[in-house]
């Protein structure tokens, strides 16, 4: 019987897959970006189903609200147009894509065949913010601090990379 949980799973999953496929199908990057936002929103829904409410919120705020805004911003800034149809790599089409398909089919087969039928209940593992916070600031304190340093470095790197190379400084005449 289709439970509410399964229906919601399928609905969100359908949105996610449709978004992902649309990402591939669209030729204009902004459409791809919007499709990706849809995927992320749908995944936030899946997280909710699994009980990870904090992650769902963070997914929306960080991924959809910040990272993807950066993408859209870049697309707007660079005025990226419709994709050109250049002749690219033969390796990618002849070797890569069959590889991906083969790999996913194999993995899917294994997962469906061997992972058993244990079901995951809706909200099986409540990831309340307080619990996640406890984990983050106790057991994962060091990784947390390291990622904060990583982020700081990334900010500086982004500023350095994206800022215009300074024109040769005017030589001071004494």
């Amino acid at each position, binding site marked *: 019987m289709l439970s509410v949980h399964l229906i919601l799973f399928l609905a969100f999953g359908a949105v996610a897959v449709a978004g992902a496929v649309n990402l591939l199908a669209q030729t204009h990057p*902004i459409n791809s970006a*919007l499709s990706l936002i849809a995927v992320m929103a749908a995944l*936030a829904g899946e997280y909710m189903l699994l009980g990870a409410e904090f992650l769902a*919120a963070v997914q929306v*705020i960080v991924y959809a*609200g*910040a990272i993807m*805004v*950066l993408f859209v*911003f870049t697309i707007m800034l660079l005025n990226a147009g419709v994709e050109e149809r250049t002749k690219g790599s033969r390796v990618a089409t002849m070797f890569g894509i069959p590889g991906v398909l083969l790999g996913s089919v194999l993995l899917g087969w294994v997962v469906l065949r061997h992972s058993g039928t244990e079901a995951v209940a809706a909200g099986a593992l409540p990831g309340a913010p307080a619990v996640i916070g406890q984990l983050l600031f106790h057991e994962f304190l060091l990784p947390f601090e390291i990622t904060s340093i990583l982020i700081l470095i990334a900010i500086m790197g982004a500023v350095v990379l994206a800022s215009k190379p300074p024109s040769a400084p005017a030589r001071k005449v004494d």
Partner: protein
Amino acid sequence: MPIWLYILASVIKSAIVLVVLLTAVAYTVWLERKVVGHMQNRWGPTRVGPFGLLQPLADGAKFLFKEDLTPPHVYRPLYIAAPLIAVIFALTSISMIPFGNSVTIAGYSIPLQVTDVNTGLLVILGITSIGVYGVALAGWSSNNKYSLLGGLRASAQMVSYEISLGLSLVGVLIMSGSFSLRDIVNSQGGHFWGFIPRWNIFTGQFIGFFCYLMAAYAETNRIPFDLPEAETELVAGYHTEYSAMKFAMFFMAEYANMITVACLATLLFFGGWNGPLFGPAILQAILPVFWFGAKIFAFLFLYIWVRGTLPRFRYDQLMAFGWKFLLPLSLANVIATAIAVAW
């Protein structure tokens, strides 16, 4: 409570909130015109109805019946989607706002809130952060340099100030220990020495409130941070090419956002619906909602007051203010609060 009753209650609540919100939006516009008019030694709208009170209706009718113009060379799908995105997310976020304690009708306790989510504050932040797409996409899809500049400014500004906005709330979250807006309000009950209310703004979150206020002005693109639609530079910014109902949607989104922000400020820093309760039972039930509305009104008035008083920043000033002043300040507030609470 049976499920159908629950759904019924939700639908009714949604309808009420939506009607009230839209009305509030309309009359905020009226209020703004009126107040700013008086500040500038004018009368504001006076012709339609007493004190121009029916002016919003007239405006609505005008927007509905004007020609909906789609300029050539715009990217149509997004050009149409952008105002929808803006208004939908602006209206959605209000659904998390509790506007009073629960009332008991026919034996069922019904919270005065469309949806009560544990992580209500996070959800609001998430929805607000999605709202930026409306502005950004509008600017980009209009295929107009003023719009594009407006859209770019808007997205950069909103992403930048979202950090300060979030951080300014962390102080409150540390003190209340919950993401649930209802819990946050409840944690602000009581008084110091019997007369000073135990609102967060009086318990050490003044700097947090200041940061929140600044970031909120920037998030809602209001003066003095209204650079995305700076008339003197960008014609009308991201909605230069919009007209009629699509323009009205942006307009509504902006004011709905203002109201949401005001609600949040009230809930987080000013004790929500807490206030003196007196009189008969029916008055006791209504008073909290009244106090809540009165505080929101005060905030909206502040918005308009600021708009009538302050000039607009330059764009580099805006960015410098956000990154070099507001962000460190809100971080310091977080640290200070954390130390105070831990100690």
